[in-house]
């Protein structure tokens, strides 16, 4: 990953623990996917083990853009599910299609983008209604109700995601009043409560301040408060901790876990930092060039990665225990979407690529174990399996 070296991660230890075999590897078969009891989240309540309700189901999502260089397809045949109260971690390098995928969920794609007709995006609202996101018109009332009210979004740069010319309260109250039938006074009360909730001191004073009056960590907290103020059921967090320094990062992650537990939200957490993912996600989907190459329960994927790309990403994480070792980056660069390789998209950088197989046909998803899927010829019995 030449363009984004993960800094020394405070989660190295947690990650190591996850990667080592746990004494009891039996996984509960009732819940799909199985929940592993990692030490890092031993404090989580047991309700998370109950069969979770699927709130979002994405099938066959393909997105293409008309550009001057022709049609490019940064996302191809992506499918995943998000359960209420659980977190899906989307991992990948920049250009892997993570952000575009979530933009499609919010109907926020630019005008030159098109979602393929075979795409299905099912969402269940707070009221229990089924919504087909793929058929919504971007400017429609239904799409607007979805944005913010049902699906909240937080971004990498908290300063840039607030408008600098309105107070925090103004922007929060706007969001609240768009989605809840409340007056100014009540909206203000909700906003103050939310600011208090995310750990901002003196919320009734802060609410009238401008974003530039807050420090970086405070802004990210305020951004979370803003995204949650309209009470979304699903939260999309697009690299929310990447721009923060590591101590603040830990605080913000802790806060998000806490809020998720209290509010029972589903969450999609986008990052390129597997250390962060190990801390927050229940399941991981690793994306490469617009395709999910591996997915499964966090613990299993990190401890027993099947795809060479996932293996490469894990080797590229610095660890406090092995400071003298040099990191092993994944060789090469992610290809441009205009030059998408034939066959498996990763074969150009893969040390174990099978000549004659990987460069011919894209692999189908196979399941080495329950709930753990991988798209790789090495694991596909129909290919010349070596695994």
């Amino acid at each position, binding site marked *: 990953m030449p363009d984004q070296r993960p800094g020394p991660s405070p989660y190295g230890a947690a990650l190591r623990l996850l990667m080592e075999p746990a004494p009891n590897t039996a996984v509960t078969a009732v819940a799909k996917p199985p929940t592993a009891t990692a030490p890092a989240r031993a404090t989580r309540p047991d309700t998370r083990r109950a069969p979770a309700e699927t709130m979002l189901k994405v099938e066959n999502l393909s997105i293409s853009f008309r550009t001057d260089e022709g049609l490019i397809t940064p996302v191809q045949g992506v499918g995943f599910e998000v359960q209420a109260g659980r977190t899906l971690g989307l991992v990948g390098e920049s250009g892997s299609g993570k952000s575009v995928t979530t933009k499609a969920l*919010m109907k*926020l794609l630019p005008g030159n983008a098109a979602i393929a007709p075979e795409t299905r995006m099912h969402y269940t609202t707070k009221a229990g209604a089924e919504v087909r996101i793929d058929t919504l018109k971007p*400017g429609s009332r239904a799409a*607007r*109700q*979805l*944005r*913010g*009210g049902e699906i*909240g*979004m937080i*971004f990498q*740069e908290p300063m*840039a*995601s*607030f*408008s*600098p*010319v*309105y107070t925090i309260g103004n*922007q929060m109250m*706007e*969001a609240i009043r*768009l*989605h809840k039938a409340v007056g100014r006074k009540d909206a203000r009360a909700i906003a103050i409560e939310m600011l208090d909730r995310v750990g901002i001191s003196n919320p009734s004073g802060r609410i009238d301040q*401008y974003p*530039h009056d807050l420090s970086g960590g405070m802004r990210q907290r305020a951004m979370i408060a*803003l*995204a949650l103020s*309209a009470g979304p059921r699903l939260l999309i967090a697009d690299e929310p901790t990447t721009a923060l320094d590591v101590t603040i990062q830990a605080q913000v992650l802790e806060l998000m876990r806490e809020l998720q537990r209290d509010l029972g939200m589903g969450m999609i957490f986008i990052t390129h930092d597997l250390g962060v993912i190990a801390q927050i996600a229940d399941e991981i989907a690793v994306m490469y060039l617009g395709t999910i190459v591996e997915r499964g329960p966090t613990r299993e994927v990190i401890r027993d990665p099947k795809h060479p790309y996932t293996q490469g990403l894990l080797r590229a994480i610095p660890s406090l225990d092995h400071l003298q070792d040099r990191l092993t980056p994944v060789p090469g660069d992610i290809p441009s979407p205009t030059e998408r390789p034939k066959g498996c998209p990763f074969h150009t950088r893969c040390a174990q690529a099978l000549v004659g197989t990987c460069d011919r046909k894209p692999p189908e998803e196979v399941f080495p174990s329950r709930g753990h899927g991988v798209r790789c010829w090495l694991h596909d019995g129909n290919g010349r399996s070596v695994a």
Partner: protein
Amino acid sequence: MLRFTAERLVGMIVTMLLVSLMVFIIMELPPGDYADRYAFRKYSGTGVSVTASDIEAIRVELGLDKPMMLRYLDWIGGIVLRGDFGQAFAFETSVVKVIGDKVWLTLAILLSTLLVTYLVSIPIGILAAVRRGSAADYGLTVISYLGLALPNFLLALILLYFANKWFGADIGGLFSAEYADAPWSLGKAWDLVKHLWLPALVLAWSAVAYQIQTVRATMSDEINKLSVTAARARGVPETRLLLKYPARLAINPVVSTIGFDVNRIFSELPIVAVVLGLTELGELLLQAYLDLDMYVAGAILLLLTAVVVFMNFVSDILLAWLDPRIKLGA
């Protein structure tokens, strides 16, 4: 905001005092004074030979013999305390009477020009940015380049020709014949409005073209800001979103150049005024200079600069209101 306004207000007053001193010095710069001119006018061709002491007597009579600093204090004191701009020698009356209506008419032209400029350029610039790359965008760009290229006195002539040809109306000047010398009334005011649009359009022409480009460029930048996407992701309806978030910042450069626009209008006004037969101060200013009628010239200069300084003050306040970050630097 109150403190900021007060600070700018004090700054404006100080600026005005300095400007008035400069204006007075400029008035003193041309060689000779009205005493020379008066003597020449009164006695040339009459065969009477005028001596230096005669001129000196006139000078004493007009009060022009006192030291410059003293005359400045007299002048500025009269303006501040009594609204008295001094004597208009060539007209043998007070400056206030000579300038009178012309000040208000000039201000009316200025304000209507500014109004036309912003009412036309801001919405069009925003629209062009929102519909970037569309036929409307390219069309507007072409028209605005035409606007930048066409000298406005030429435009004035063209408009006069067609207005006359199509409407058969004499639209030159600021009033119809029946109102020209009539006292002020509602009818006269309406007549003025009916005549103002033409000079306002002509004077606004190039500024509109320029400001469309400015608004379009800033708006295009602002539209792509993450804060706009974030607001959209909160479900803010599109029109409200565009007006509340990017548009507010997109008009920043327009607001901050109000002072330049005022300046430009004042410098272009005299030529357009000649073509369209308008009553305004520019022509009078030139005449006053030729006559060395220094208090008339001084009053006009002072009023024009006062308007520029005041509009800059307005622009500062508007800017601080539009963008709360400004106050940090105050």
